[in-house]
């Protein structure tokens, strides 16, 4: 197995990509996708720790956490899409730049 640092670095890069996506994307759905990428990075992180640390830790908690996380992420997306659709129906746009009636 490669050393754990490699895995962690890849996850970190993945996470960073997600963050960049949230910051630069204008479309709400794309922002959601970026958040999903971030969550995937976290999931992989948890799995990595669980697998690499199985001996010392004596538990699989990370993997269990990852399972829950996958489900929650899916629920979150469903929820978010509902709200985005509602926004689209009201404002005819999914562009977050334009959705800024509330400010200051």
């Amino acid at each position, binding site marked *: 197995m490669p050393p*754990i640092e490699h895995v*962690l670095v890849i996850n970190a890069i993945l*996470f960073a990509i*997600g963050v960049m996506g*949230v910051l630069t994307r204008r479309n*709400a759905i794309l*922002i*959601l996708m970026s*958040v999903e990428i*971030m*969550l995937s*990075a*976290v999931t992989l*992180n*948890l799995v*990595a*720790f669980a697998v*690499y*640390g199985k001996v*010392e*830790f*004596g*538990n699989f*908690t*990370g993997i*269990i*956490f990852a399972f*829950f*996380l996958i489900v*929650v992420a899916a*629920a*979150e997306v469903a*929820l*978010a899409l509902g*709200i*985005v659709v*509602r*926004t689209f129906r*009201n*404002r005819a746009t999914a562009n*977050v730049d334009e*959705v*800024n*009636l*509330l*400010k*200051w």
Partner: protein
Amino acid sequence: MDVIDLEYALIIPELVLASFATLIVAGALIFRRVPQEVWGYLSAAGLVVLLVLTAVFYINVNDDFANVLAVDNYTVLFRVFFLGIAAFAILAGVQFAGDRLRHHGEFYGLIMFATLGMMLLAASRELITAYLSLELMSFSLYILVGFNKLNPFSNEGSLKYLLLGAFSSALFLYGLSILYGVTGTTTYSAIEPDGIEAGRNIAQQLGNFSAATIDSALPIPGDVRPAIIVALVLIVAGLGFKVSAVPFHQWTPDAYQGAPLPITAFLSAAGKAAAFAFFLRLFSEALLPAAAEWSWLIAVIAALTMITGNLVALRQTNMKRLMAYSSIGQVGYLLIGIVALDAGSLAESQDAATALVLHLLGYVATNVLVFTALIAFYNRTGKDDIVDLRGLAERQPMLALLLSIALFSLAGMPLFAGFATKFVIFQVAASNGHLWLAVIGVTVSFVSLYYYLMVIKQMYLYKPEGDDTGRFSVPAPMMGALAVLTGAVFLVGLYPAPLFKAIDASTAMLFPGL
């Protein structure tokens, strides 16, 4: 593997609440002929009954469920609290919802699901459960904020809340994952302090670090301090979002302004309280051994939050937004309580925890009072800008008086709860070695008086404007609720000692071995 002992009797309140919520939602769907208010009153009644039963049966139980939930006095305190606030929010919302919202069954049901999430959050002694409860609460709140489907503000608030919430959740989780990687467990602390069932737990692991910087039994070789710092920063970022700390607070004014008023009240009161309940339990049970690593962090955030919240509040014109920023300012004081956990001895840390919960309860009660008054006003006039309150003293003197009392309490004037609770927090912070935070807190308190007075000035010194300037009456149950809350504000302000002792008994649960 040991057989995990499942004592379901401990979580009956949560199970009942879940079923009740489902029943309400289903019932409203099936029995469409029943008027909507019935579901509201039914929900509120159910919550009150549950509250009483919880208080009666679960005091001093002090046990835990499956090593995952702790049912101790701390949990019971917050259970009672959340149920109470939810009942209040529902009662306040019944008339509001009747005129302006559709799908009432889901409205009440969602409030109850959110409450369920909060109760579980306060009880969690383990990260996975905590995260799930947190998301349960958050999802319900995302929907509730946007419940006014056709209102663009409501939509927008909900969208921003959701997207930023998801983003912050992801940050939070990343931090959690690193924490897991460094400690190898997600349990906060040992079940029994003398380690009869001392499995690996976070507090224990972090405690090991303080002694030596390297722990060879980890998958991450070398010094783990950078990893801990990163994990802490991310965790605090995520939690900071939920409690509206600066710089993670920007969703708050939009969500508060956009949401229907009863939900704003619920969000600002219970939402914040739940997040802090979690914050406190996590930091005092799990992360306390690493206090040196995070106390500066939270101190900086506390200072920023106090200053920013109060500064921006000065410039607000909308009541909901004003209350949002006022809440942000108050969060700063609460965060001082967290910082004060970093003290010389466990007893002093416990004092900090008690001070925090005391201020939290006082602040929440007062906030609910303000929002209920605003709801009463909104029900009649449909307006929520500050200038709309002009002349309220003439139109509804009792309402104006109670609202003024609440605002004075938030500003920290003596005789009211706000003074006593703030005094306690500042005093604890000062004696635990964080005097500068207390100084900032007191200074900022003075500043906050300005914008609270601004509102009071509108009510008392101006004549009512616009077309609708006659006297109006507030329905008796609402007035009753306002009176009860005001009484509580006075009581805590004049004689805080008994409440203080009660809270002390519950926070003692967080510091086993004390």
